């Protein structure tokens, strides 16, 4: 009967009450194998569906499981921990139900067991419980799980290491205090050692754990950095596995965003180049943390932004901007470019030279872009334009831009043209002066002032020549001209 139930369990999603009442007495059976199989069946049922998990909780099976967890052999412990994990993963309420029946203490006791399989199952269950919110995490920490998880990380079995790392990551992601608890047990040193492990799934979890720790505050980020992860983390950026790359760039982003000094450290170890290459080698959501990291580094100061430019990040970002299909990645790329270009004319020039400004403008104007993308590209354009003195990049803007951006463009021209004679000549020959004359501006507005200051750079005849309707005026004069009668 027990093997029947076990085999059929993946296929019975309905009739749950019947199943529960069938399985419950089996849990109390004398034969240990039947108990184990019944627990396994329960676990599989609960794993499949949230409703079934609720039924498990309602059927009062959990206290029995918890009670017998303490006493039985390792197969039963594994199966029982599997049930707890399967129930706890669906929603915070179910996880809270597990905590309420006192399962945490028994799970922590299981963490001290000799068998690595039992430890793995217990750690997995704890990780899934702690994943939902901060209170549940706090409950897991209060049960004393964290030091044991750190001990589990040091075990030789790879699967156990993976699960323990992912449990630590889930615990520390909610709040700085929880992350501090994890750090106080000395987890960072062991996690940092495991970055060099060749197993890619382990690396994923370790990097995710470190980034969850580092994201909360400057002190935590500094502690992670002190564990000497640079430049070793940069090798993870070249890994074959995409998620390892993503988590590594997430870690670097979380460290870079806190202070200029941390960003400086990352730049000094060559992190920017590594991240740029990583962005170039992957697609889609994997790129997103790397793009944001570049934006954060450039945002801190102009020297760092210059360092980002020197690492050839700007062409890569403009490639991302043009070829990515998703709006949120484009928005991130636009924001990053804005942060790079907004500091000084040199920076703006470096961004403008790669021809990204027309792309940004088109994104801003297109109706298909999301609001977020539109606001970000508008801000980026504005901040770059206010410092841009590279006129060949500004000229296309005279033709396509909407009035609010046109104001800034014309303003920039009015700042640059009075001082540069070559630029003035170029402006005339490329038809820019003609376009400026055609712009209609309200009298006394800022735009009109800019137009006036541009016009004052040129002799009056030229201005009149290019003003609209000049050819008609000339023809009218021809018409009204009386040749002198000789």
């Amino acid at each position, binding site marked *: 009967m027990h093997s029947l139930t076990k085999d059929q369990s993946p296929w019975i999603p309905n009739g749950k009450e019947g199943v529960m009442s069938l399985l419950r007495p089996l849990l109390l059976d004398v034969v240990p194998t039947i108990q184990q199989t019944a627990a396994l069946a329960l676990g599989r049922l609960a794993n499949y569906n949230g409703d079934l998990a609720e039924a498990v909780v309602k059927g009062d099976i959990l206290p029995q499981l918890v009670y017998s967890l303490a006493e039985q052999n390792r197969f039963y412990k594994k199966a029982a921990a599997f049930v707890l994990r399967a129930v706890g993963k669906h929603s915070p309420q179910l996880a809270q139900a597990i905590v309420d029946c006192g399962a945490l203490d028994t799970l922590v006791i299981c963490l001290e067991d000799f068998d690595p399989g039992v430890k793995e199952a217990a750690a997995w269950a704890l990780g899934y419980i702690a994943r939902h919110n901060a209170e549940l995490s706090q409950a897991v920490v209060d049960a004393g799980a964290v030091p044991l998880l750190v001990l589990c990380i040091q075990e030789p079995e790879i699967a156990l290491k993976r699960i323990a790392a992912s449990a630590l990551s889930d615990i520390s992601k909610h709040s700085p205090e929880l992350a501090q608890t994890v750090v106080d047990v000395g987890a960072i*040193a062991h996690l940092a050692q495991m970055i060099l492990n060749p197993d890619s799934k382990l690396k994923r979890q370790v990097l995710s754990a470190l980034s969850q720790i580092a994201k909360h505050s400057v002190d935590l980020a500094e502690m992670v950095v002190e564990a000497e992860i640079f430049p070793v983390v*940069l090798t993870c950026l*070249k890994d074959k596995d995409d998620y390892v790359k993503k988590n590594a760039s997430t870690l670097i982003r979380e460290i870079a965003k806190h202070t200029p000094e941390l960003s400086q450290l990352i730049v000094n170890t*060559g*992190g920017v*180049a*590594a991240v740029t290459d990583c962005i170039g080698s992957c697609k889609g959501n994997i790129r997103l943390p790397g793009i944001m990291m570049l934006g954060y580094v450039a945002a801190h100061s102009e020297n760092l932004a*210059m*360092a980002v430019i020197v*690492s050839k990040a700007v062409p890569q970002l403009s490639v991302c901007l043009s070829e990515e299909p998703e709006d949120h990645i484009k928005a991130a790329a636009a924001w990053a470019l804005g942060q790079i270009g907004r500091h000084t004319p040199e920076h703006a020039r470096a961004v403008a030279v790669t021809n990204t400004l027309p792309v940004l403008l088109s994104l801003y104007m297109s109706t298909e872009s999301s609001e977020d993308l539109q606001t970000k590209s508008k801000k980026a354009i504005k901040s770059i334009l206010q410092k841009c003195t590279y006129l060949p990049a500004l000229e296309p803007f005279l033709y396509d831009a909407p009035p609010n951006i046109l104001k800034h463009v014309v303003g920039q021209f009015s700042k640059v043209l009075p001082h540069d004679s070559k630029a003035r000549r170029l402006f005339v020959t490329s038809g820019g002066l003609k376009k400026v004359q055609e712009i209609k501006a309200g009298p006394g507005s800022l735009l009109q002032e800019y137009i006036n200051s541009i016009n004052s750079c040129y002799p009056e005849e030229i201005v009149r020549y290019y003003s609209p309707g000049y050819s008609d005026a000339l023809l009218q004069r021809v018409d009204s001209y009386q040749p002198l009668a000789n």
Partner: protein
Amino acid sequence: MATLARLQARSTFLAHQYYFRNSAVDVFRKKEYDAAVKIQSWFRGCRIRAYLRYLHRVATVIQKCWRGYLGRQHYQLIVKLEFCTMKMNLYNAMAVRIQKRWRGYRIRKYCFNYFYLKEYLKAVSETNDAIREALEEFAEMKEREEKKADLEREEKKRDYQARKMHYLLSTKQIPGIYNSPFRKDPDPWELRLQKAKPLISQRPKVKQKRGVNISNRLACTSARSLPQSEILPPIDRKQCQGPFRDITEVLEQRYKPLEPTLWMAEPINELKMAREELRKQEWMRNINDNMFLPFSSYHKNKKYIPLMHSSSKYGPNSYGSQHFRDENPKKWICDKDFQTVLPSFDLFSKYGKLYSKAGQII
């Protein structure tokens, strides 16, 4: 009296003359009076005018001096002011020069060093290139390793297959599948089959019964254990010859517990343990745990500071201070270090000093 007469005669003449003269003079009196007045007034006027002129001149002189004095004062004031202004301008100009130099120096030295920035950016790009190269190498190395591992796995698989299919090898009489007579040279599989060792199907390992091992044998020395034999002796055994001692006595004798000598009864490391005991007692009694060093070695109680290279983050590296050989714990047979079990005995010190003269060269 004569005179009086004369005078009386003359008196009318005199009177007439007096009257006539007075009236004649009267005519001219006004004129003369007017003329005299005129002359006098003119003369007074001249005098006054001269006096006025004199006064004017004098006043002019005074005013001239006074105005000159005032003017000079004013002029001096202007000159002073001008001088001050000139001085201040000079000072300002010099101060601007100093400030210009100082500000330039300060910005270049403390706030922003352009050349340092350029150097820094160059260093950053060099580091970037180095990192890019290193990462490329790393990726290449990984790929190579993977390829190698793949090839090895393939090789192993093929080898295993060849071992399984060993019976397809061609014999002298019959050419095998892979050695078709119509081919010029045999198929590579043929060569592989030749090289492969035939695979023996593994028999299930006989589960060895846990025989009597050492510990069990030693346990026999306790009075409680009896011989563990599964098979009872046959019942129809031939009677053994001779008077026999009582069986209980025999068994008692045979399974008497070991009564080791005093020397054997002590644990083998009793000296060491006795020393430990002594040390513990001393430690209990001691007030000061530090050994008193003689004054000559007073300078030797400095703590040894290990090299940074040999001490790591997670505690000092014992290599270099506690053990000097590279140890490979994986190769150790057991965890404990070798212990001296038997005390050393001097065998060869008695060589030639024994009583017997056998074997001595005469």
